[in-house]
C-alpha cells in the first residue's frame, strides 16, 4: 500500500455539499476512517450526527488527528482548500474538484513546491488502498479487492474498467491512484511509480495514460532506469485527432510528443508491456504475474 492505509484519518473539505455528503457516506461504508469535515461557517455542527465539522483544517487536525484530506469544494475555492491543508501539515490531499483554471493550478504548484504535502489531482477520482480499507475518493467500492497490483491512471472510468478486469482475474490491488485529467496534475506517474517500486506488497503496476503532455515519457524514463517490477501500460487516444480536446483539459494533441504512438513507443522501449487492446489489460497482467512466480 502507498499513501493511504488503515492509519489514514480522513477529513473531508466541503463535507456539507451534496456530492461530498454522498461520497463521504460511501467512504465510511467502505471502512475509511473519516474523522472530520471542514466547512467554514458550519463549525460546531455534526455531519449526519456522525462526523464533527470545523471551520478550519488546523482546528480539525488539532481536534481529530486527521492526517489526510479529501476535497470537494467548488473550483473557485479549491486551491485555497488545498493550501490550507498543506499549511496545516496534512501530508496527503486528494482533490476531486474539476474546472480549476490552469494559472491557479500553477500557483498551487509553486506554493506546494516547498512543502511535503502530496496532492493527488485535482479533477481526479482520488485514491484507494483495498488492503487498508481506505478509500479517499469517488471510485465505486465494490470493484476493488485487496491484492498485489498497483494502479495509476490519468482517467477515472478507464481505471474502473481496468480494476474490474484485474479483479475478474483474481488480481487484487494494493493501491489505485487517479492522477486526474488536468494538464498540471499535483502528482505525476513518476511520483507514484517511485512509491510502488518501494512498496514491498506491490508486485506489478498497471499504468493508464492518455494523449497530451509528456507525463508518460517521463514515466518511461523512470521505468527504464529504476523499475524492477513489471509495468503493464495502456495509452488512450490513439484514434484522437490533433488539436481537439478529448474531454480532459490535459488530453489534447499539441505536438508529436503528446501523441499516443510516441508514448506507446517510449513505454515499450523502456520495458513496459503496452497493451493495444484495452479489453485485455487484466489478462495480460495476470499472465505477466504468473510467469514471474
Amino acid at each position, binding site marked *: 500500500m502507498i499513501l493511504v492505509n488503515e492509519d489514514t484519518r480522513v477529513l473531508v473539505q466541503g463535507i456539507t455539499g451534496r*456530492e461530498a455528503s*454522498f461520497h463521504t457516506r460511501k467512504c465510511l461504508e467502505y471502512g475509511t476512517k473519516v474523522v472530520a469535515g471542514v466547512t467554514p461557517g458550519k463549525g460546531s455542527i455534526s455531519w449526519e450526527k456522525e462526523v464533527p465539522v470545523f471551520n478550519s483544517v488546523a482546528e480539525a487536525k488539532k481536534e481529530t488527528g486527521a492526517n489526510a484530506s479529501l476535497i470537494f469544494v467548488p*473550483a473557485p475555492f479549491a486551491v485555497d482548500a488545498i493550501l490550507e491543508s498543506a499549511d496545516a501539515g496534512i501530508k496527503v490531499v486528494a482533490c476531486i474538484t474539476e*474546472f*480549476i*483554471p*490552469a*494559472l*491557479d493550478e*500553477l*500557483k498551487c504548484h*509553486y506554493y506546494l513546491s516547498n512543502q511535503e504535502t502530496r496532492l493527488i489531482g485535482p479533477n481526479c477520482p482520488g485514491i484507494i488502498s483495498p488492503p487498508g480499507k481506505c478509500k479517499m475518493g*469517488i*471510485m*465505486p467500492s465494490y*470493484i476493488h479487492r485487496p491484492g498485489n497490483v498497483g494502479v495509476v*491512471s*490519468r*482517467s*477515472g*472510468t*478507464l*481505471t*474502473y*474498467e481496468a480494476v*474490474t478486469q484485474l479483479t475478474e482475474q483474481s488480481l487484487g490491488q494494493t493501491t489505485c491512484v487517479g492522477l486526474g*485529467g488536468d*494538464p*498540471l496534475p499535483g502528482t505525476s506517474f513518476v511520483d507514484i511509480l517511485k512509491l510502488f517500486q518501494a512498496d514491498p506488497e506491490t508486485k506489478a503496476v498497471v499504468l*493508464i495514460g*492518455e*494523449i497530451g*503532455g*509528456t*507525463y508518460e515519457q*517521463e514515466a518511461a524514463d523512470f521505468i527504464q532506469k529504476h523499475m524492477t517490477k513489471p509495468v503493464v501500460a*495502456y495509452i*488512450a*487516444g*490513439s*484514434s*484522437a*485527432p490533433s*488539436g*481537439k*480536446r*478529448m*474531454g*480532459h*483539459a*490535459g*488530453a489534447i494533441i499539441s*505536438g*508529436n510528443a503528446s501523441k*499516443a504512438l510516441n508514448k506507446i513507443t517510449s513505454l515499450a522501449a523502456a520495458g513496459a508491456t503496452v497493451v*493495444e*487492446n*484495452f*479489453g*485485455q489489460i487484466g489478462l495480460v497482467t495476470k499472465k505477466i504475474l504468473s510467469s514471474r512466480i
Partner: protein
Amino acid sequence: MKIHEYQAKELLSRYDVPVPRGSVAKTAREAGETADQISQRVVIKAQVHSGGRGKVGGIRIAETPAEAEQIARELLGTKLVTHQTGPEGLTINAVLVEEAVQAEKELYLGMLINTSAYAPMVIASEAGGMEIEEITTRNPAKILRQHFELVAGLLPYKARTLAYGVNLPTENIRPVTQVMAGMYRLFTEKDCSLVEINPLVTTTDGRLLALDAKINFDDNALSHHQDIVQLHDSSQEDPLEVEAGNTGVNYVKIGGNVGCLVNGAGLAMATMDMIKMVGGEPANFLDVGGGASEEQVAQALKILLADPNVKAAWINVFGGILRCDVVARAVVRVLEESKASVPFIVRMNGTNLQEAMRVLEESELNITFEADLVSAAEKAVAMAKLRLSKANDTSQ
C-alpha cells in the same frame, strides 16, 4: 475558447502590442470604406477560426477600395475549407481589412504553459510565417524557449535573450521585449492558454507589427472574464458540438460512422480506439461525464444521432455515480421518441446493471447487448458496415 484574428489584434493592441492599421468589416461596402480610409494597398483576410487561410484564397491583396469591396463580396457568406477545418469548412461572416505592409523579417512568438516544466514559456523563432509544428519539424534549432514563473513574471533579460537569439537588429530589441511584456500581461490577466503572434514582422519603414495573431483561452477560467466570453463566435464551431456544450457533455465530431456514447473521457477515448482497432471508424468522442442525469444522457444521444454519418451506435458505460439504469432509460426514451433506425449496441458494467438490462429488455427495441468490450466493438463496426453497404445498394 478561440477568437478571431481581428479580436486577438484588438486585445493585443490594448496590451501595447502594435498591429497594422485596419478594421473588421461584415459587409462588402464596409470593407471598401475601410480600404478607402486606409488609402493604400490593403489585405483582405477572411475571419474564420482556422490557420492556413492564405493557401486557400482566404487572404488576398486589393490595390484599390473598389477591388477591396469586390474581394470582400466574394468572400463574405462563403465557406472557407482549410487543412484544419475539415471538408465542411467554416463560414466567413467577417473580413479584416488592413494596410498591406512590406515585411523585412518574419518572427514567430508564442506564449503557453509548458506542462512538463510546470511553467509558462515563451517560444521565439526567426522562421516566422509558417506554423510552429512546421518550424519544429523543419528547423528545430531555430526555436528558442524561455521559461518564466509567476512571481517575477517574464524577466526583461529573458525577453532580451530571445530577441538577440532571433537576430533582431539593435533598434528592434527594446520594441520586441515590450511586445513580449504585453503578451505576458495579457496571458496572465485573461487566463490565456495560447497567445501566438505569427508572424511578428519588422517592416521596411522601421516598424514592428503583429501581422497575424491567435489567442486561445482557458475554458476553466472563462467565468472570471465576461469580456472574453463576449468574443465567442459559435458560428465557427460544429453546431452539434455547440449543442453538446450547452447540454454540459463533451462531444467532438471525428468523421467516421460508428457513433459512441461513453461516461468518462478516458473510457471514451479507449472506446474510439477499440472501434479503430477492430477496423472501424469512430464517428465521435462523446463523454457524458460522471454525474449526468437521464435528461443529459438523452440529449447526448440525440446529438450523437443527429450526425448523418452515424450508421451504428455503441453505448459504453461503466456505472459508478452514473447508474446503468439511468442510461438505459434514456436510451429507450430517445429510441422510442425518435424512431431512429440505426442499430444499437449496449455494453454496460457497474451500478444497477441488472435494472438496466430489465429496462432494455422490456422496451422490445432492437438493441444488442454485449458484455465484452472487444466483442461489442466488433459488433458495432460490423453493423455499421452492413448498414453502409445496404444504403449503397439502395442508392444504386
